[in-house]
């Protein structure tokens, strides 16, 4: 790219546009000190907004603003409008966005723009809402009509997301974009590799909660994972194994609770698994290896507060005076020793449990 003049005000190609200053007749409170380049570009952008021009040079202008401030949503919105008006090649735009997504990973707008492009480039599935004509132009002539090609493009898109996630493993926008892509296009072939894929991320960092959420999304929430009893048993076994590796990990306990709640399984099914995690390390006998209920690793720091909480819930669910007494003892140990910051909450649990007994 050759370098255009630093300022539009000095560029003869823009001499026909009347720049509009941001504040006219108002001396603003709390203004921002812009660089001369930013002020110049946004003055010309306001000029363009006024005339409603859609042209190649508008694409150049919005890109320049976005480079200086990727959160300028009006620039994005106008860029989108211009792309449509010009019938621009959206594939090219998507490739340009590859760069921007990585550079401005934390900006809402880059990910949303991408979503708009992908929605236009690929045919909409029958499960998506019928677009209202005003808000979504959906020009069918732009779309890939070949289903194999569409699938390949989606697969490429997933690969792109994977690359972004390796740079920032917990980026909220990237994760929700991936989940949108999967559920919006809802292609059985796309879902297929997802559990294996996210397993790699969990293996890399067992405490990555975004990855755990994704697993739950794929297997349960999306309604497209395996739902049979075997699959549920497999998920529970997987979670147990990850707990044994590093028990003080809220992500995996939340996942385990999520699976049980979602499938309406009583917590008591996991009582014998949980118990060894609620006591000190040295008291355990190492000789019995139970594959179904893996024991805490040698390095585990026990007792584990999350396990105590779980066991208390088991007792509370069982009900009855004796079980509730046991639950209360466990909550007391959390309040006074193992999870003191949440003392008020554990005391609340005790009060609630005792109140329902009366």
């Amino acid at each position, binding site marked *: 790219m050759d370098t255009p003049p630093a300022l539009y005000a000095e560029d003869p190609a823009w001499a026909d546009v009347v720049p509009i200053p941001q504040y006219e007749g108002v001396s603003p409170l709390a203004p*921002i000190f812009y660089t001369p380049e930013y002020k110049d570009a946004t003055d010309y952008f306001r000029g363009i907004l006024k005339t409603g021009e859609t042209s190649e040079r508008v694409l150049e202008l919005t890109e320049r603003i976005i480079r200086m401030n990727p959160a300028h949503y009006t620039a994005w919105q106008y860029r989108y409008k211009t792309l449509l008006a010009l019938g621009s090649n959206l594939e090219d735009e998507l490739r340009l966005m590859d760069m921007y997504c990585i550079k401005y990973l934390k900006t809402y707008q880059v990910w949303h723009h991408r979503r708009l492009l992908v929605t236009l480039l690929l045919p909409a599935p029958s499960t998506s809402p019928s677009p209202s004509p005003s808000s979504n132009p959906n020009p069918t002539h732009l779309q890939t009509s070949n289903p194999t090609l569409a699938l390949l493009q989606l697969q490429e898109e997933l690969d792109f997301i994977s690359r972004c996630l390796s740079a920032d493993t917990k980026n909220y926008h990237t994760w929700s974009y991936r989940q949108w892509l999967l559920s919006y296009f809802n292609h059985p072939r796309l879902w297929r590799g997802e559990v294996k894929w996210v397993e790699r991320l969990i293996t890399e960092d*067992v405490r990555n909660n975004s990855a755990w959420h994704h697993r*739950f999304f794929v297997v349960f929430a999306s309604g497209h994972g395996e739902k049979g009893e075997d699959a549920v048993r497999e998920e529970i076994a997987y979670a147990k194994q990850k707990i044994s590796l590093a028990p003080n990990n809220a992500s995996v306990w939340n996942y385990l609770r999520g699976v049980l709640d979602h499938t309406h399984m009583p917590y008591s099914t996991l009582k014998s698994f949980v118990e060894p995690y609620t006591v000190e390390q040295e008291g355990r006998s190492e000789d019995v290896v139970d594959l179904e209920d893996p024991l805490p690793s040698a390095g585990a*720091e026990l007792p584990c507060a999350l396990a105590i909480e779980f066991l208390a819930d088991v007792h509370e669910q069982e009900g009855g005076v004796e079980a509730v007494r046991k639950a209360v003892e466990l909550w007391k140990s959390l309040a006074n*020793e193992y999870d*003191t910051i949440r003392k008020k909450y554990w005391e609340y649990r005790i009060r609630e449990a005792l109140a329902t007994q009366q």
Partner: protein
Amino acid sequence: MSIYRPTPTDSFPTDTSVLQGETEETLSKHIPSPEYPAQPLNRNAHLQWLVRNMVQGFPTRYTSQDASQPWLMFWTLQSLSTLQAGLDSGNKQKAIDTIMSWQYPEGGFGGGPGQAPHLLATYASVCALANVGRPGPGGGWDEIDREKMYKFFLSVKQADGSFTVMRHGEVDVRGIYCLLVVATLLDLLTPELVAGTPAFLASCQTYEGGFSSSSQPYFSSGTLLSSPRPPLGEAHGGYTFCALASWVLIKSFQPPPYGVDIDVKRLLRWLVMMQGSEIELGGFKGRTNKLVDGCYSWWVGGAFALLEMLGMPAARTEAPTAHSDTDDEWDDVDGQSYPLRPSVVQYSTVPDTLFNRKALQEYVLYAGQHPTGGLRDKPPKTSDAYHTLGCLSGLASAQHHVTPSTRRREEITLLWESNTECAFTEQRKSAFIDALAWVEEEGASKYVGSSADRLNAMHPVFNLTMTHTDTMMGHFYQQTVPPRLMRRNV
């Protein structure tokens, strides 16, 4: 060396636990000790910092927030109000004129002059006007084009009950919260506007208990399916606050349809689990296994008050007797006494929070304050406008107990005048009364340092002061709002 237990890593380090460990090391240096005594609220430094931004302007690095000018304004004005300060009438007028220049000719407010209307910018502009505006010519309030704003709201409504933040924008619960707050304040709520929204909100609750940014709808020949509606993104503090506050607002206007509900028990568990341990000074995190951050003092810490609107009672603390000159409450269970003696309040039984309100105050005071003014995410970061309000509002919510009051509700009801001819007058009345029924409970405030650190109590839904909320809603609903007993402080 810290006296508190680091988060256990089970001899199994990963990126998350390494970062957590480093953060705990930094934070634990801010735990007061004889060499580094506890900091009070640095009121003057923060006021100066805020006024400097307001009058002199924001430095160039804030260009990234050029499309968030209403937010910069709201964060700053609201921080001043939290600190019990305000602008002189000249600067107030300047603020009003600045805010009104963001109103879009076709309705709603944009992020700056000429910028497209956006739900977030609309919330920030209207709430900034709640701080500085007034009725009458030039006051801003009567220059808000409510009719066009309502049209803008309807234009971004989606088939699944959600809203996009702007034309061609993304759907997320922040936008819904912003829309509902504005619609409630300005008397724009209608059944048409919120149809389907409760079910959308409920679908954003994840298995963890908190809420995600949005959910994905499925349709079968044009009809929305009730399941699946998978949440997109994991449970998150900011979205959870927005979803919960939205739920509370809609519920006041009309009960959610049969079968549509949120799991309050699981939500409560998630909220309490977001509080960091003692070594993290009891700050709040925004997601499981992420780091504590000052802004979640409000998003998560502030969310607890909202649970009371959903029938979750406040915790009660049985105070021992009036014997002690040390406050039982603030001595920790491990017997570790704190370097600072809290001011002593004596009572028989007081409401208390389900989170550790003492620890949250400590996080904001010891880690959240930047030495040269303004507040922040965590040390060693610099302060910014967003975190300044997040920390201050969070601190306020940890100081006071704000709760819906039956007596206040009765007073407002008594003065209510039926003054519209719409088909949903009862719903409108109910939204009005619920919104104004919140009161700061007398004698329930607690301060880690002294009452010199007192901040104004915030409205738990709007994040405005009670007075600003009363005045603005009274004006737009054309109702007389009974005065509150004013506390004299500082």
